């Protein structure tokens, strides 16, 4: 008769211990790159942060003494991401609503779901080349070629799948009872979605949107083909139609320069980029927590 007490030497218990520790080690290895990357950038870039960084234009490479600041790139990233959001959020949320609420699982919705998955897997550089061919080389936007607007469009292509998918999945998580409740007292489909289902799914949709923004803000490849780069301050609405700098492209350009000052500027920009993407993520968490609270009032 086997004893009921736990026996260390039993092969199943040894195997169990082994696999538990193996998975813990794998989990640790998985998180290591993030820790190293963030600390490295914080150390390398953090030391370069000065008030002038945020206000000055970058100097053209060659002037080794002072590289200037990243103001145009910072503002450019904000503008380009905003343009991308303005395009991708309404279209994406609308498409997600169609998939989750209106479609009945027919051929059309299956085709859209499949298409969205394919779009999510399209390499970002292809999105850039596509907009280059469609907008930049044809000068279709009032004769302008490389522009912040084109950059925003390229990024919106990358945001779109994330927004559609999270809206679709977020809405599917809303219990059907809630829809029935609303429809059962004579609410139309439109009122039900707008007043009941969408608010209930707000948290997951907002998270998806923020993730999409965070992904888009860090993209370089599509911007090289569309927004290109600019050294100059963005001063007016008209600048949307000209080359526009962005943090990602600034890092790409300046990290490859042989000059130390430019390299340092690239590190500083990396620091700002990582920090802002991190804070956007944290912001989404706070937003989610806040909406949770108001729900319970």
């Amino acid at each position, binding site marked *: 008769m086997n004893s009921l007490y736990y026996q260390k030497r039993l092969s199943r218990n040894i195997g169990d211990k082994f696999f538990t520790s193996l998975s813990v080690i794998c989990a640790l290895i998985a998180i290591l790159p993030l820790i190293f990357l963030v600390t490295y950038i914080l150390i390398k870039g953090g030391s370069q942060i000065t008030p002038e960084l945020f206000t000055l234009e970058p100097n053209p490479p060659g002037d080794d003494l002072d590289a200037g600041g990243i103001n145009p790139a910072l503002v450019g990233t904000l503008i380009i991401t905003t343009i991308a959001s303005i395009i991708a959020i309404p279209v994406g949320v609308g498409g997600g609503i169609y998939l989750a609420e209106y479609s*009945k*699982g027919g051929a059309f919705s299956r085709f859209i779901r499949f298409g969205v998955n394919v779009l999510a897997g399209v390499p970002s550089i292809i999105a850039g080349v596509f907009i280059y061919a469609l907008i930049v080389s044809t000068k279709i936007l009032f004769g302008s070629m490389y522009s912040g607007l084109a950059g925003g469009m390229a990024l919106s292509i990358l945001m779109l799948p994330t927004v559609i998918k999270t809206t679709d999945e977020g809405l599917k998580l809303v*219990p059907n*009872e*809630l*829809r*029935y*409740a*609303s*429809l*059962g*007292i*004579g*609410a*139309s489909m439109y*009122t039900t979605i707008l*007043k*009941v289902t969408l*608010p*209930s799914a707000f948290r997951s949709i907002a998270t998806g949107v923020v993730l999409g923004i965070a992904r888009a803000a860090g993209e370089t490849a599509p911007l090289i083909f569309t927004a290109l780069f600019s050294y100059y301050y963005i001063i007016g609405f008209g600048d949307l139609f000209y080359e526009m700098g962005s943090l990602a492209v600034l890092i790409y350009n300046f990290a490859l320069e042989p000059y130390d000052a430019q390299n340092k500027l690239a590190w500083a920009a990396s620091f700002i980029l990582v920090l802002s993407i991190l804070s956007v993520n944290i912001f989404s968490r706070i937003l989610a927590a806040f909406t949770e609270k108001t*729900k*319970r*009032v």
Partner: protein
Amino acid sequence: MIKTNKNTPKNIILSLENVSISYGTFEAVRNVFCNFKKGNITSLIGPSGCGKSTVLRSLNRMNDLIPNCSLKGTVLFDGTNIYDKRVDPVEVRRRIGMVFQQPNPFPKSIYENIAFGARINGFTGDMDELVESSLRKAALWDECKDKLNDSGYSLSGGQQQRLCIARTIAIEPEIILMDEPCSALDPISTLKIEETMHELKKNYTIIIVTHNMQQALRVSDMTAFFNAIEYEDGDGGKVGYLAEFNSTKKIFNSPKEKITQEYISGKFG
């Protein structure tokens, strides 16, 4: 050929004429004829899978929300076949409200839970008054008058169900459908809901699906007993049908059908 009877007696508010409902190729209920009287509480009873909930949901077109669900026959409400192509299901649901098995308040305040339905139905009167009167009719006012701004979720299960009833009352429907409203509740909450139903009877017609025969006996004037059998032309699955429909007293004391007798005495079900 189905005849639509435009001259239904005045006290008949809703009538099913030769209604069959299918989910895809599976037939759930077949050839139901049934008249619901105005101001009555009618209960639908029967074993699981006999299609009583399906029938109930068909009365305000909630079945539209289930993919592949189709209905043959006529459901006459107010002289109109609600399955006519020209009928707007939203309008039907405004006049025939529904309370569900699981309490399902909106994730909003108690006040908003009631105001929501009224507002989308274009209510322009005194909202505070409507909220109070609806809660009073659902026998919930005394318990929650001091916390109208609390979330609907802060209430107990029974209170939530009464909130859902109040929410339905607030849109002033003519008929209230209840799909096993007490199956998720404890006996005390059940009793309160039943008291509420007796109060509501004065102004509304109620049709209730229940698994609890004692409840049917306690609350209803009329009882429809549904059963399911295998048809020869079917694919082997059981198909529901209306076995007997009569006053509750007769169903429980002297049923005409043997199968009804067996069901109410607990021989199967």
